[in-house]
């Protein structure tokens, strides 16, 4: 396996292909970010399907697979499809989704018909054209890649220069228009970049799957950052790596299309994101839940000890706890040990007493609980036999700031609705 990978990267033909897909993947990530943020993902899909007849017509004119002519063909048809989608949805009662579906399938059908005509004509190079359906990175020539690189650099420069207009058109179109931005022109430019990216990408990825390379990197990148420039960058990296990995996977067997393998690589990055992304990823959520339940357990135990102390027991055994509250014994033991470790409890032969710090903390929790109960009955008109349950969950969330506000709002009360004393430090 490793040998195969080393061989793969040292082969000059493979190197060329890798360079090609790296460029395509990166630029798709960049351009796709804006489609994603404008919620125009369906349009991106429609454009890539629609470009097929453009490629065929370009081929019919050139007689060979010339990247520049193919690109011009794609551009014209891509623009046309965007325009016609817009026209149908603004002049008829059909929704945008419907017109996208109509246009993209119609254009794709026309493209397929043209493709079979070209195959029948027996042109020696027609076999190369079939690869535009699912992509074959190995068919990219050095000249193709040069053209793609130049176009990509052009796209990148436009994105850098137009960054601010793109940003406000994506975020808040009406605001952009209100400060005099020519929104239609910016939208046209963004569609043009999408069409160009599709035109570059379809040879390696295929018209059927190209939209995945536009959208998936952006969708994943959104999880990793809250900053637009960084999001563009991360999407470019995801796109680039997916492209390269897809090509690598596809060399496992001869004559496999690259598009599906690139999509597979994209899926891996999406999975990775859903698992590991900060805050919104699965592991992060799990960790947070764990920390929360540990905090709740700790606070509940301190509170019980405080209650027991109010009733006159200052030394507490396991049994005392379990009389007060049913609790998982393993969790109880673990939490007690932890509270001993951080110095809130003293443990002498499994009999626990509050330390000075523990006493302060326990008083704080009880205070929060009782203040919140008082607030609910006094300000929210809850019945006093209904509040205990809600107060139980909320007390763990009350920060010092909120406590301060509660105290002010309630004017430093001394007892809760059940006439228990509110402890002050």
């Amino acid at each position: 396996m490793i040998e195969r990978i080393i061989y793969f990267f040292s082969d000059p033909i493979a190197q060329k292909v890798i360079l090609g897909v790296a460029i395509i993947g990166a630029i798709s990530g960049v351009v796709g970010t804006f489609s994603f943020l404008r919620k125009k993902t369906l349009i991106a899909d429609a454009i890539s399907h629609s470009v097929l007849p453009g490629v065929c017509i370009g081929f019919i004119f050139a007689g060979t697979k010339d990247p520049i002519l193919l690109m011009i063909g794609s551009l014209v048809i891509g623009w046309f499809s965007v325009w016609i989608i817009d026209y149908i949805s603004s002049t008829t009662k059909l929704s945008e989704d419907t017109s996208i579906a109509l246009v993209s399938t119609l254009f794709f059908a026309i493209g397929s018909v043209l493709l079979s005509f070209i195959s029948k004509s027996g042109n020696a190079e027609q076999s190369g054209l079939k690869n535009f359906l699912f992509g074959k990175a190995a068919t990219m020539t050095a000249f193709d890649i040069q053209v793609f690189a130049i176009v990509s650099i052009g796209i990148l420069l436009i994105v850098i220069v137009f960054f601010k207009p793109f940003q406000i058109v994506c975020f808040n179109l009406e605001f952009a228009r209100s400060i005099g931005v020519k929104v239609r022109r910016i939208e046209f430019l963004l569609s043009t970049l999408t069409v160009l990216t599709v035109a570059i990408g379809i040879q390696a990825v295929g018209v059927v799957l190209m939209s995945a390379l536009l959208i998936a990197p952006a969708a994943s990148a959104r999880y990793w950052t809250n900053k637009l420039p960084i999001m563009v960058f991360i999407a470019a990296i995801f796109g680039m790596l997916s492209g390269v990995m897809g090509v690598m996977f596809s060399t496992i067997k001869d004559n496999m299309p690259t598009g599906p393998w690139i999509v597979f690589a994209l899926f891996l990055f999406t999975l990775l994101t859903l698992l590991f992304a900060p805050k919104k990823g699965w592991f992060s959520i799990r960790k947070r839940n764990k920390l929360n339940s540990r905090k709740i357990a700790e606070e509940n135990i301190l509170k019980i000890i405080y209650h027991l102390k109010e009733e006159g027991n200052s030394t507490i055994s396991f049994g005392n706890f379990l009389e007060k509250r049913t609790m998982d014994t393993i969790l109880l033991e673990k939490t007690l040990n932890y509270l001993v470790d951080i110095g809130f409890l003293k443990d002498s032969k499994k009999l626990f007493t509050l330390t000075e710090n523990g006493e302060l903390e326990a008083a704080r929790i009880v205070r929060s609980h009782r203040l919140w109960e008082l607030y609910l009955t006094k300000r929210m008109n809850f019945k006093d036999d209904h509040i205990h349950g809600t107060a139980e969950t909320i007390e763990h969330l009350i920060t010092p700031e909120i406590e301060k506000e509660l105290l002010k709002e309630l004017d430093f009360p001394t007892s809760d609705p059940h006439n228990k004393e509110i402890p002050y430090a």
Partner: protein
Amino acid sequence: MSQNSIEVHNLSVAYNRIPVLWDIDFELPKGQIIGIVGPNGSGKSTLLKAIMGLIPLSSGFAKIFDKELDLVRERVAYVPQRESVDWDFPATVEDVVRMGRYKKGKLFNRLSSIDKHLASEAIEKVKLTPYKDRQISQLSGGQQQRVFLARALTQGADMYVMDEPFVGVDVATEKTILELLISMKNEGKTVVIVHHDLQTVSDSFDYLVLLNTRLIAHGPTKEILTEENLQATYGGQLNLLSKIRNIIKNKDFPMREKGFEDK
């Protein structure tokens, strides 16, 4: 030198040929807090968008400071309805407020340190400084509303046109915003606010426009707040108009006859 902040003449707007505003005519004073009030769906947002040149008009025109909008754009700041944007966009409070310094013709330059300073000042004014690096989706409704307000302040305009700035706002934020609006007025700014509810905050309006598809009344608040006007704005007075609206909707009837335009 005229006294008008906004002049609207003969203005009509239709969506898919269904009229939403009919022949609106009014002139608004400068340097006051002006409320545009009417029930939901009465066309208030549409009126603001028409004034700001964001949607095509079926007829009539709107002028700002007696000029075409394009000539005075930099003197007007528009605050869209909060729900009109996706707050999950990758941006922090500071990013959004700095958009207020994006100016036509300067969109390709970097923001200067003065621009950045103005943005920080506006964030301070709406009391969001502790939140300036927060992702905007992690803010409460009231905080999001203040982000928009700060962006408008950053624009440094003479007139502020705001769509429902009090929606989804808690009492404390409402007070902050009101105080800010009053201090803006004291600096000679004109503040135009769309609001759907006359119960709240309306005593802060100096001038009112009552709207329900057509113009019901406009003038200084004291003169306008009559039982009759309120009935006309919020009551079921529009039966005939809504009937016609439905006919147009069902029959695809053109709102204006082609070839018979008024001279």
